[in-house]
């Protein structure tokens, strides 16, 4: 370091030099700028997880299609009746409801309040959670009464060769 003794103060080359013991709590101009650069670094790092999640969404990893699963033959499910099944895994119980001759809806039936199973009540044409009397609209899965605030996740179904198949789970939309 030539020139170090020629400059006063000499060029700063470490991070502790600007601490003045008698005055260490006062923030000088240089220290303030350093703080701002540090804050910019924190912002840069903090935006990484959001970008990662967004990239993941763009690559479609969250909306994957599960292997199609046969639920029931059409002739075994009369109009207005419901049937419990499991999709996509054995631990995700779901309910399939035949609303009209050619209209089927299916939802994962863990109540969005405390995960009690939700049942289809044919007489009232409503989906009811017996634990706290939460109710869901059968057309959309949206909560209509009681404690739940979020809709039931919809299972997309497909009718093929006189049987109903579960295709995938619709993403939760806020």
């Amino acid at each position, binding site marked *: 370091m030539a020139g170090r003794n020629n*400059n*006063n*103060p000499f*060029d*700063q080359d470490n991070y502790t030099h600007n601490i003045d013991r008698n005055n260490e709590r006062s923030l000088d*101009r*240089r220290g*303030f*700028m*350093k703080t*701002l*650069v540090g*804050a*910019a*670094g924190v*912002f*840069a790092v*903090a*935006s*990484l997880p*959001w*970008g990662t*999640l*967004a*990239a993941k*969404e*763009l690559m479609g990893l969250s909306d994957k299609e599960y292997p199609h699963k046969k639920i029931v033959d059409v002739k075994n499910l009369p109009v207005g009746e419901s049937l419990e099944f499991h999709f996509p895994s054995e631990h995700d119980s779901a309910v399939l409801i035949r609303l009209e001759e050619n209209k089927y809806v299916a939802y994962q039936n863990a109540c969005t309040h405390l995960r009690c199973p939700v049942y289809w009540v044919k007489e009232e044409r409503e989906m009811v959670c017996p634990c706290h009397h939460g109710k869901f609209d059968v057309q959309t899965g949206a909560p209509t009464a009681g404690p739940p605030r979020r809709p039931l996740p919809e299972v997309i179904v497909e009718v093929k060769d006189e049987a109903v198949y579960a295709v995938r789970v619709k993403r939760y939309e*806020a």
Partner: protein
Amino acid sequence: MKRSYVGVISLCLVLFLDIVFMQLLIHQYFFENYLVTLIFMAGNILLFPIAFLIYKKEKDKGAESHAKK
């Protein structure tokens, strides 16, 4: 002692942009505009080297007049 506040002011601007980008980034993420989210993330990350360069350039401004005193 004469001071240069160019660095302080431009770094404040950079930090302000950081805050704005962060807010928009999170909003666009929840609005599911994921490409826009990525653009804001790139902006936020680019602002850090910019801030660092401003700091490097500006940290000794005003020191000459200090030395001459």
